[in-house]
């Protein structure tokens, strides 16, 4: 399937829906529904099949709408500000006259907290996944599996709140600074991506054919060596996919980061990991509520940049997962 076909279908369905919502008057929609019901009465099989196909296209339509509306509002704003000014400007001063809209500090902030989350979350996540798949007694597994599902289900505001009242004071007292920092956000994000990495990696490790483990043991390897030197490399693509998905979670996480990261829209260097930063996501969530005009457009453009990052990460995820 070509990329062109995908774009064509998405654009087409988006247009159809815009027309549906906007131009087509209600009577026409009602008539369509009546026509469908008549069809259903005379030919149940065909009518139902049409309903099922229409439902299946809903996801396509939704993605089309999201792309069209975000890009249609974000890209003109970006061109207005100047793409280079927008992406590489180090000053975000929406209230100045003339206002400055540079999101490099936010791009850097997103990268820092994500890198930090990888540092904290990925090693622990992968080792924990290996444990779950290869070392865990069945009785412990029965307890741990739902626990990890629960970890994935805890709302991000609860994580954020936990970060605010526990991690922020902890970092302030042990590392200095005021606690709302890149480090705090990284620690919190590292916790939040654990379940994603563990679940998918465990699945990948379990999917490795048993012959690989058996072969290694037959050649004299211990349980640990066989697991880490034969089985884990065989599960490489699945484990990598889980890490990429975790990165996607970390880049897209909003509430928790916004509550612990300090949110200063100032360009930081990596060694300033004890000072606050603002990510792309928190930039939108902090200012969208009261922004209007150009400022709102600049925020939507921020969303577009974030969306582009996410699409890139998703594509990588699907590539790697498809490879196995």
């Amino acid at each position, binding site marked *: 399937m070509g990329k062109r076909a995908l774009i064509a279908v998405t654009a087409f369905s988006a247009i159809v829906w815009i027309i549906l919502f906007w131009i087509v008057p209600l009577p026409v929609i009602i008539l369509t529904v009546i026509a469908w019901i008549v069809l259903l009465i005379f030919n149940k099989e065909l009518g139902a099949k049409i309903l099922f196909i229409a439902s299946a296209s809903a996801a396509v339509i939704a993605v089309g709408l999201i792309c069209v509306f975000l890009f249609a509002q974000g890209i003109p704003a970006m061109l207005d500000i100047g793409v280079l000014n927008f992406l590489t400007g180090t000053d975000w001063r929406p209230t100045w006259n003339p206002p400055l809209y540079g999101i490099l500090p936010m791009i850097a902030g997103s990268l820092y907290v994500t890198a930090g989350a990888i540092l904290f979350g990925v090693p622990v996540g992968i080792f924990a996944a290996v444990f779950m798949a290869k070392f865990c007694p069945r009785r412990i597994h029965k307890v741990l599996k739902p626990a990890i599902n629960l970890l994935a289900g805890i709302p991000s505001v609860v994580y954020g709140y936990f970060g605010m009242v526990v991690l922020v004071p902890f970092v302030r007292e042990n590392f200095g600074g005021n606690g709302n920092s890149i480090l705090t956000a990284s620690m919190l994000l590292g916790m939040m991506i654990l379940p994603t990495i563990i679940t998918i990696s465990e699945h990948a490790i379990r999917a490795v054919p048993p012959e690989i483990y058996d072969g290694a043991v037959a050649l004299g390897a211990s349980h640990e060596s066989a697991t*880490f030197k034969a089985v884990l490399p065989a599960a490489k693509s699945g484990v990598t996919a889980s890490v990429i998905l975790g990165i996607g979670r970390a880049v897209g996480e*909003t509430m928790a980061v916004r509550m612990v990261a300090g949110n200063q829209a100032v360009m930081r260097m990596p060694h300033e990991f004890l000072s606050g930063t603002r990510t792309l996501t928190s930039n939108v969530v902090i200012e969208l509520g009261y922004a209007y005009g150009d400022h709102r457009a600049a925020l939507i453009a921020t969303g577009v940049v*974030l969306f582009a990052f996410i*699409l890139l990460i998703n594509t990588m995820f699907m590539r790697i997962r498809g490879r196995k």
Partner: protein
Amino acid sequence: MFKKFFRKKPTDRIFFLASWASIIATAAVLFFVVGYVLINGLPHISPALFAVQFTTENQSLFPALIGTLMIVGLSLVLAVPLGVCSAIYLVEYAKRGSRFVKIVRLTTETLAGIPSIVYGLFGFIFFGVFLGWGLSLMSGAFTVSIMILPLIMRTTEESLKSVPDTYREGSFGLGAGKLRTVMLIILPSAMPGILAGVILAVGRIIGETAAIIFTLGNVARMPNNLFDTGRTLSAHMYALANEGTHPGEAHATAAVLLIVVILINALSSRVARFIKA
């Protein structure tokens, strides 16, 4: 397991210890988060927290609770039929590997990966501004239903696939048509799996904040009609945490939110286990 530890090679010992340490760290994160929130929150839960009217004194979470129920109900009404029908198409009707199926799968995975703030932004632009629904139950429910669509589709697909082919063959053999087979034979046997997915989706909606505050809004009252604004429990939690003026109520709200999520998770796995029985 531990007895043999000192007979292992040094590298093996490191691997062994690292795995144990990692899983203990993971479990510790869970216990610490859940324990901290519950221990600090439960003592602050009081009847005033469930007063019908929100005032600055009581910081009642009741309107937010009702708002949550409304959003959950409305978005399930929108997303469940759509998700189940599209999964039926993908599993029962579509030809394997057809172009349309590939596109649907690709877009579903894309939807699953979009962060909630982007949904919030989109809902705000499209439902709020473009369609003129403003901050309302309708904008919120539509936005959230797009968000949970991939989850419902995936779980329904999984449970439809787990229905053995002999059921289909038996039904066709007795002369039933495709639609009758799907509706009366396959769907009922796939029901527990679908239900488990729906319950997971409810959990996802309850935990959602970023997409809610720009579509439903964050006003502490119950919505009066479909085009009225309100807030959900997690949006309420966010507001309380940010204001920082009512730490007791914030602790209590976090505990209530967490308890709801734990209950929903337990319910979902209970229902999912039912499928294997």
